[in-house]
């Protein structure tokens, strides 16, 4: 029986503040953690036994998936111990697997691609990307892997290493021989480069692939996933509420009079939507939300248990759990000169390549009435924003802007 190992140990530092309180793989896209798409796709591809390699906030992964009963599969967990790189992460499962697939839990892989990998022993998944500068690129010859290179400024090919592999026991011998890379980690790419010298490693070209490096990539992933979803209304839709396009409404959720929802949109359970609010396409709303009168939300992901209750506008944003917007708090999402939005992350300037980007907001943020949040802002966990305050740029956790 081929097992499926999902790497889910990473913290995802580039997605702070959202990952201060959850591991990267548990970030929600269309109301499901990223890793769940991989699990479901792998199950559909025929895999039944899973090993999750966890570490950072491992309890959240475990509490969500349990032993796999609700998916009718078996899930085991292994703690990586220390974050020492991908080769090390795979190395810790040695005693639990024989023939196995490994995939990075923070990248969404397609069902058919997983199936193809499953059918090709000793293989790695590759993906053709228009701009591969940020990724490790792969040299191949007759569908066989020659070498994997670190990311390059001027890559000679557009084929990248996608982060999905099919290995057997032999890989562990190579992992034990893998040296630390200049980054100080044990990298599986170094292991594979050793393997290609001694044996044949095949390639499988993937059709679907969506990775999440920066927070706004969640919005792209969200859009992609929402496009594929089917309509399903389990909650109550009041008279005079308008539902257009594909909309999912969860149990015990009530959409009140005068609300106007344009799909694709997903709304979780126990939410109170409206009256008189406007929810626009590509919005995912988690469980237990209140979106009140005269509020507009578009192209955003909002996690669980938060409130956007009165006269708010939220666009192209990600809002963490337990946030509460004061009446009139609005989020700007477009520069007046309509140029790309530049953000600062960990002291580096990064072009988000988006013309529209609102706020990336952590958990338990409170905003006062009529406060305003400027484009491309990052607001840490537990930040308080006073009434009428204007917020922009990076606000570190636990800060108060009065």
């Amino acid at each position, binding site marked *: 029986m081929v097992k499926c190992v999902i790497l889910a140990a990473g913290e995802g530092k580039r997605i702070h503040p959202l990952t201060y309180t959850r591991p990267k793989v548990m970030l929600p896209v269309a109301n499901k953690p990223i890793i769940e798409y991989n699990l479901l796709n792998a199950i559909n591809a025929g895999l039944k036994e899973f090993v999750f390699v966890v570490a950072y906030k491992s309890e959240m992964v475990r509490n969500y998936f349990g032993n796999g009963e609700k998916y009718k599969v078996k899930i*085991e*967990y*292994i*703690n990586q*111990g220390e974050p020492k790189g991908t080769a090390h992460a795979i190395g*810790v499962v040695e*005693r*639990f697997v024989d023939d196995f697939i490994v995939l990075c839990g923070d990248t969404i892989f397609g069902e058919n691609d997983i199936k193809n990998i499953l059918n090709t022993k000793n293989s790695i998944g590759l993906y053709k990307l228009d701009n591969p500068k940020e990724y490790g690129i792969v040299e191949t010859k007759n569908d066989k892997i020659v070498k994997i290179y670190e990311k390059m400024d001027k890559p000679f090919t557009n084929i990248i290493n996608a982060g999905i592999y099919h290995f057997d026991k032999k890989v562990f011998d190579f992992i034990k021989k893998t040296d630390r890379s200049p980054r100080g980690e044990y990298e599986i790419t170094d292991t594979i480069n050793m393997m290609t010298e001694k044996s044949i490693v095949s390639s499988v070209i993937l059709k679907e692939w969506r990775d999440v490096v920066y927070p706004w990539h969640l919005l792209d992933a969200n859009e992609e996933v929402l496009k594929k979803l089917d309509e399903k209304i389990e909650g109550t839709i009041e008279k005079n509420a308008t539902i257009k396009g594909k909309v999912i409404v969860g149990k015990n959720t009530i959409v009140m009079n005068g609300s106007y929802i344009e799909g694709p949109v997903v709304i979780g359970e126990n939410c109170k939507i409206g009256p008189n609010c406007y929810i626009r396409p590509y919005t995912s709303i988690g469980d237990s939300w209140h979106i009140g009168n005269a509020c507009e939300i578009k192209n955003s992901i909002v996690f669980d248990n938060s409130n956007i209750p009165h006269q708010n506008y939220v666009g192209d944003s990600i809002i963490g759990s337990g946030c509460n917007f004061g009446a009139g708090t609005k989020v700007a999402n477009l520069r007046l000169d309509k140029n790309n939005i530049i953000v600062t992350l960990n002291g580096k300037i990064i072009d988000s390549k988006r013309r529209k980007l609102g706020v990336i907001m952590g958990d338990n943020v409170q905003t006062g009435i009529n406060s305003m949040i400027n484009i491309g802002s990052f607001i840490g966990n537990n930040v308080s924003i006073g009434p009428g305050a204007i917020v922009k740029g990076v606000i570190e956790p636990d800060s108060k802007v009065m």
Partner: protein
Amino acid sequence: MCGIIGYNGFRDADIVILNGLKKLEYRGYDSAGIAIIDKKQQVYKEIGEIKNLEEKLPKIKGTIGIGHTRWATTGGVTKNNAHPHLSTSGKIAIVHNGIIENYVKLRENLEKKGFKFVSQTDSEIIANLIEDNYKGNLKDAVFSAIKKLEGYYAIVVTCEDEPDKIIGARLQSPLVIGVGDNENFLASDIPAFLKYTNRVIYLNEAEICVLTKKDVKVYNKDEKVVDKKENVIDWNIQDAEKSGFPHFMLKEIYDQPDTVNQVLRGRISEIHRNINFNENVENLLNSNISSIQIVACGTSYYAGLIGKYIIEKFTDTPVFVEFASEYRYFGLKHESSLVIAITQSGETLDTLAALREAKNSGCKTLVITNVVGSTATRISDAYILMQSGPEIGVAATKTFTSQIIVLLLIALKLGMIKNKISAVQLYEYIRYLREIPRTVRDVLNKNNEILDIAKQLKNAESVFFIGRGVNYPLSLEGALKLKEISYIHAEGFAAGELKHGPFALLTKSTPVVVIATKDATYDKILANIGEVKARGSQVIAIAEIDDTEIEKHADFVLRVPGGSGVLPSIPIIVVLQLLAYHVADLRKCSIDKPRNLAKSVTVE
């Protein structure tokens, strides 16, 4: 006091156990050993630090085992007395932390039955007692055995006939379960396994647990399964290093300007003129408090004595300072009193017991500690963290100054609540607090002067430390520091008490360290110096920087920046620490690990 660990999982047990023991080394370090089941029990022990064991240990296969780092209580430091101990058949291995009070009797009985003993420890009988009760089920055997034990213990047991499980049991000694995936851990303290899992289960008194690779079962003393909650630990352990200093103690003394800033961090505001604690602490301090009892052991007790002076000064509330070991049995516990327990580790057994007693009697309880998530923080109403970072040297230095600053903050806060301090006064005190790092640096720059004085003391057989008022507990602390690391007999006295007895001990070869600050009793202390000089003893005075009178009286003078009125002079403490350090260093003593002492004492 010892550190114990057990591992049952899929990783190489030798690596997991050695890593864990290193994190437990603060609990004892005179010998160490491990026992791993690789078909048979494989036992290796060495005298000395864990490093020693690590160097001599061959590679052992096996993914289940136990380990121990020892601080000898019963039986000397020998390889035989080191844990783990095997039963006579060699099948059962145990590690133990605690004291078995009835071991002599149990040992006689077992010897009569033909069991063999190779060590002088009380612990070895546990292995044989379990074997005596073994009828094919290790859990039942452990239950039967512990019923016969008197005293207290944390034990971890493995048996080669049941190589799929480890069993732990505890009574009054610490033992926590680390719940992993396909692996489980048992250890005296969480850092031992934190690398691998952050989910822990705390065992209650007299509970037993059985750990297989896959699951954890906890039984109460009636052998019924109890449902236990997993707690998720949200902290990191940073590794301490000496950073170029010859000893941890010296590094920690030099850390003090930083740790003072850390303990003040977010708690004082110069512009707002306010002192802030977290909500629990503020609520506690705002409640109706008729009296305060400070309970602590060792150095923390002296910090408590200083706390008494300052809290009484600022609040008019009576403060009583008690040894935790006494208070737990004999202390008066009144519902309207606030009990402040001071414990660096948060695990000091006597202090925990006193805390529990106080709580059971309805007292309000507040803990001052350095360790987040320690037992003390869990059983008290509120706690204040010292934020000093790990302290490795056995002699408390930076945590002592942090304790005093916390007490000072409490005193100032209570003074504000009770309207005994005005905003103007408070501002002055906050300025003083802000300047402490600077005054401490000032003393650290006098290192060489202090070294010269230390040369005067290094051959003394006995040293007295005297002071009045808040300087009296400082004298006690100065004496404690000196004796615990340099092994010179030292005593601290209230200066006025000398003539009521201690003078009888004073000879020409007893140097006297006098703390003479310019307070209301300055003239009296000068008179005391006169009395001492009259007996031919050398006087080393610690005095304020602008004191021009003192050199007429003392043989040597060490100067420190002046304190602000009643506030204790943190710089004086730093002088005393450096003095003790240099004397010990000149005498080539083992400064970071003094003989017979361990960092935190979790036995009675």
